[in-house]
């Protein structure tokens, strides 16, 4: 089938643009290859951005999308075509079908309702987010860097992460992309000299653990030299219920994250 698309790679336009049949075929391809992170309806999730947004961070034109799907995005969890362990890899034709499907799902982004400036104040002040989260080089280190989180997580996933951080720790990926698997589990250890350390895992294997404590200190430990080791999926992040963070304040913080991400 590839020979039917001799200039596909060079094409700036999708040869299958606005073809409903191609978009339908693209939906099946999308489910197999993309839905793990981007959700069944391309609405995104805890791992990947909502692709129904007309404005995308890493791609504007169809040619951009083709390049992103083919080669992945360095420094992110977006893998090159055929390397993610899901699906079988796609032909050029199938990639164009997926692009036709994504375009068919696009909707205008809803207007951002929150007050970003108030959100910034909450983030670095009263709500205490910046104690553990960094944005554009400023803030704490214990939790994930949130500089680009608004682009890679859906609104609903972010709300859920704030309201109920332990329900789902940071979304790890399958082992083929293991370098992105940090899940920020909570670890408590007692060292040989009796010191107790509590923190989040930076990494872990069968015999060692690399953790960061509340003070931002790294501890590089061998498990067989510890007096105790326990791991919990109860997040160190406190849950923010509606009493500690109102719905409108939460929307303000999300608006701030969106502006930070847009920079």
């Amino acid at each position, binding site marked *: 089938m590839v020979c039917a698309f001799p200039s596909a790679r060079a094409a700036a336009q999708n040869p299958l643009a606005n073809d409903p049949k191609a978009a339908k075929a693209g939906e099946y391809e999308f489910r*197999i290859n993309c839905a*793990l992170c981007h959700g069944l309806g391309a609405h995104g999730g805890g791992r990947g951005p909502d692709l129904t947004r007309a404005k995308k961070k890493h791609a504007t034109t169809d040619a951009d999308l083709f390049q992103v799907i083919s080669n992945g995005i360095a420094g992110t969890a977006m893998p090159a075509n055929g390397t993610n362990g899901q699906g079988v890899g*796609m032909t050029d034709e*199938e990639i164009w079908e997926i692009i036709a499907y994504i375009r068919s799902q696009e909707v205008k982004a809803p207007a951002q309702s929150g007050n970003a400036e108030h959100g910034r104040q909450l983030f670095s002040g009263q709500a205490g987010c910046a104690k553990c989260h960094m944005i554009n080089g400023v803030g704490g280190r214990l939790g994930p860097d949130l500089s680009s989180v608004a682009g890679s997580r859906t609104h609903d996933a972010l709300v859920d992460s704030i309201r109920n951080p332990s329900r789902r720790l940071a979304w790890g990926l*399958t082992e083929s992309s293991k370098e992105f698997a940090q899940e920020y589990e909570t670890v408590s250890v007692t060292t040989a000299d009796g010191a107790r350390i509590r923190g989040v895992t930076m990494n872990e294997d*069968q*015999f060692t653990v690399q953790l960061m404590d509340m003070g931002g200190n790294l501890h590089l430990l061998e498990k067989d030299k510890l007096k105790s080791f326990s791991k919990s999926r109860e997040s160190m992040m406190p849950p923010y219920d509606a009493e500690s963070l109102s719905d409108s304040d939460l929307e303000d913080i999300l608006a701030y994250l969106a502006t930070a991400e847009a920079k």
Partner: protein
Amino acid sequence: MKLATQPCHSDRSEAKRANKRSCVIPTGAGAQATAKWRNLLFLATTALLALSAAAQVTSDRLLHADQEPQNWLTYSGNYAGQRHTLLDQINTANVKNLAAKWVYQTNTGGRIEATPLAVDGILYETGQDDRAFALDARTGRPIWMFQHALPQDIRPCCGRVNRGFAVLGDRVYLGTLDSHVIALDRKTGNVVWDQVAADYKLGYSFTAAPLALKDMIIIGVSGGEYGIRGFIDAYDAATGKLRWRFYTVPGPGEPGHDSWEGDSWKIGGAPAWNTGTYDAATNQIFWCTGNPSPSNRGAGRAGDNLYSNSVLALNPDTGKLNWYFQFTPHDEHDWDATQIPVLVDSGNQHLLLHANRNGFFYVLDRSTGKLISATAYGKQTWSATKDSLGRPLAKKEASPTLEGHTVCPGALGTTNWYPPAYNPQTGLLYVTSRDQCDIFSTAPQPYEAGHAYYGSAYFPSEEAEPYIGALRALDPASGDKKWEFPHTSPTWSGLLSTAGGLIFTGDAEGNFIALDAATGKPLWHFQMGGAVYAGPMSFAVDGKQYVAIAAGSSLFAFALP
């Protein structure tokens, strides 16, 4: 040094052929062996020095591979598929001193999933993108390298990987991602013959290590995600001429054809993408098959879909079917049954052990194919009842839905292609396993030649997190789990059992680990810096036992100082 204490197995005539002081491999839990393997190792090494490097790997040597434990002559170490080495220089007492001896890097991306072969001091290994190489087993220095010229437009399912060579005579044999079977000269890597088995543009490929048997090279095809029609081929090792082909989906007029709705058999899948085992006593090969196509949608292919997800007992001389056993009829969860079928004798029972991707550990009588037991060895939600023959029955509500719902195990299965090991001393089968559940959804995806054909999708279910990975030791007599070694995360490592009382495994975090085969206690580990997707093996050169395994795109060898 630990000495084997069991007497020789007496009821196998081939037991004492080449070396009167050595024993045949105990193939069964009840098998006994008195050999002092240290002495055997010494004798074998002495014999090696006397051999010229041109020594042929005869079919007789393959049949009696356990008489030369310094070599690793087939994918699973011997025809029984036990992946158990009789070398015991490295044992539970001294394994703590094990050290890396060399590393061979392919210096490219992708990963090695193959188990190397060891023949008289030379390792033969295949790697990603159908590359291959021969190494000095003592130093890891390459003797030759080979890479098959793959077309640009191949799209193999699940990685551009290869799982290893077969060796026979003065050649090694591999299957390729564009469906070629190729014979290479063992001394140079030169191509001796190159046979095209199928059209890669329709989704056919080879990833499995072939099985060399008698004067044939036997290999099963991959491509269950493309709506292929699966087959197992036997080639004349000398010429590359096809001797026979067994289609794993029966055609019109053949038994089992009526287990397919309409024309669905034409694109029925049932690939045979792993290596089979062989029982000389009954002259049967045991070859396992994968999912029917499309993997996650049963509508349109009503029926049991024979011989998908089955073990086939074939006469290797004719390719005719003696019997079959289907583990997962009418599969809708991608539970390929392509795990290595392990042959074990226990008392007067001739068993086939199969820890299946669907979460059940099956014990069959390999003479007849009769089921002896089926016991869950991991988390499963798809079956609550068994039929009158003891086969687990699928719940109706386990079928994928349009919206998607959670079923355990997930599509990756309780285990997968990575080889298990059997230790005759403990009588246990060791299995790398995973407890993960997936959301299975379905959609009426049309078949299009050469395109991925899943009938929709699956992905990990958050309901069942975190996913558990563990090495499990299973007792074939009871089906029970004797011990479990939990991994930090699920691994794709195969296993090696040793007469030194050890089980070797690798993990997703890059560790190579030795455990006590009796207890599961970890005794040694080494961080290799790359996730393991391969099976370990063992060999000896100059009287020194080595253990080798691939991690990432490199091959590592370890020995005592």
